[in-house]
């Protein structure tokens, strides 16, 4: 077997083993750890897959308590699509604002000192404190959910971009100065390219946070068109645990896909020249 194939196999085998352990633990929880009368709290994986993903639509009309909240793949996907839109729009806005702020802050120490404390505060206050306030002030619709995402995703982008822009080699900077480069030129030709690896690190973190933001906002708003967050809450309230686990899995998958996408994009952009420190 060539080294290349071995490496590829190793990359697949690791996650597969962990996935196996995870599913195994899940079954263990259902059949062994939970007592008979509490078993419904942790439905087995195959039931979750069957009811949440392999059933297109659970008819709310059958009137059993467990299904009164609806469910099935069509509801799940509709909610997922809404949450994904919220997360992606929120993330995009956070990226634009974040990079603009970081660029401004990189230009003068006093700008950095003026803005940074407020960003840290925004980061430190639990998002749950904001959510109800935003809802009351700005409605419970799409735009408020997006705002929650922006707030939660902003900081890592600003912090990483700023760090990247400012940790340029002194000798590189002097080379630019020596040849009469303006500030704009320095930014464009030196600082932004040099900051790319750090920027992508920030994007990756923020992408995950934006997904959380989309779900948390939706979860606590409890109004308007349902996203994944509201589904989770509603299925929990109506004891539709198979559906609830299904929603949680979809939320996780959305987070993984977005995180993976930015990792891939980062490698595409800086992979040719950037060598992360060896392990």
């Amino acid at each position, binding site marked *: 077997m060539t080294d290349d194939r071995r490496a590829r196999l190793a990359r697949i085998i690791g996650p597969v083993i962990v996935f196996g352990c995870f599913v195994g633990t899940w079954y263990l929880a259902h059949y062994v750890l939970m007592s008979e009368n509490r078993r419904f709290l942790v439905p087995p994986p195959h039931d979750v897959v069957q009811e949440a993903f392999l059933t297109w639509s659970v008819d709310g009309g059958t009137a059993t308590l467990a299904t009164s909240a609806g469910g099935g793949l069509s509801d799940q996907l509709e909610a997922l699509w809404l949450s994904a839109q919220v997360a992606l729009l929120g993330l995009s806005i956070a990226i634009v604002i974040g990079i603009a702020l970081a660029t401004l802050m990189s230009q003068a120490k006093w700008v950095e000192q003026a803005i940074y404390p407020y960003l840290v505060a925004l980061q430190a206050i639990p998002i749950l404190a904001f959510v109800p306030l935003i809802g009351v002030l700005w409605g419970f619709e799409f735009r408020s959910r997006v705002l929650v995402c922006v707030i939660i995703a902003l900081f890592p982008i600003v912090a990483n971009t700023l760090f990247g822009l400012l940790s340029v080699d002194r000798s590189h900077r*002097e*080379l630019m100065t020596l040849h009469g480069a303006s500030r704009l030129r320095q930014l464009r030709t030196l600082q932004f390219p040099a900051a790319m690896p750090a920027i992508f690190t920030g994007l990756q973190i923020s992408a995950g946070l934006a997904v959380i933001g989309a779900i948390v906002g939706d979860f606590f708003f409890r109004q308007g068109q349902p996203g994944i967050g509201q589904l989770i809450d509603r299925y929990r309230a109506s004891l539709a645990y198979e559906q609830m686990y299904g929603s949680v899995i979809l939320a996780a998958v959305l987070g993984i896909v977005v995180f993976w996408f930015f990792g891939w994009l980062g490698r595409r952009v800086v992979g040719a020249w950037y060598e992360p420190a060896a392990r």
Partner: protein
Amino acid sequence: MPTALQFTSVGLTFPDGTTALDNVDLDVGSGEFVTVVGPSGCGKSTLLRVAAGLEQPTKGSCSVDRTSLGFVFQDATLFPWRTVHQNVGLLAELHGLGDASARIGAAIDVVGLREHVDKYPRQLSGGMAMRTSLARSLVLEPDVFMFDEPFGALDELTRERLNDELVTLFVARRFATLFITHSIAEAVFLSTRVVVMSPRPGRIIAHHDVPFPYPRRHDLRYTAEFNELAAAVSNDLRAAQR
């Protein structure tokens, strides 16, 4: 011989009180290759940084036309996200030279990197990186060239080979050069004049004219005259350190 670079009673004291340079007078004529040797920490880099305009002297003045200045740092200072070709083109971009592809190609040929134009700095050896750095400045066709221990991190053989190439270049272009090195042999081999600096605060304490005609062949290094001159420079350096 017109003067390309002139230090007049230059002194420099850093804000923390360190006096790096004290009353330095030095002229480099156009077509002259002047090398500065001196003990570590004596202020050689500072002298060069003053000449390049990266530091302002606190006393005296330095006059030089910086419109087409070549400056080669101790490390290659290549941008890791640019290929060899793109790195060599950097200064052409900064100086707004427009379509400089012919110049870039020529500079790359001069340093013998034709086959490596699409490599990134992480794929280069130390010698190749330094050649790229040299080519980057050559694109500007500078009248004044400054080097701060450019070959210090290279092995002996690579260093000698690059010295040979630099001499060839100097003969062809005759830029005024201010060169800094720790190696006495390198200084004598390359220069028209070697100056010796005292320990900090740096002053010029000796000048040695190097009489060997250009082009210089690599085996010049093994002649008696060469070694005599190197010994004389070495003696001055030792005397200064006591």
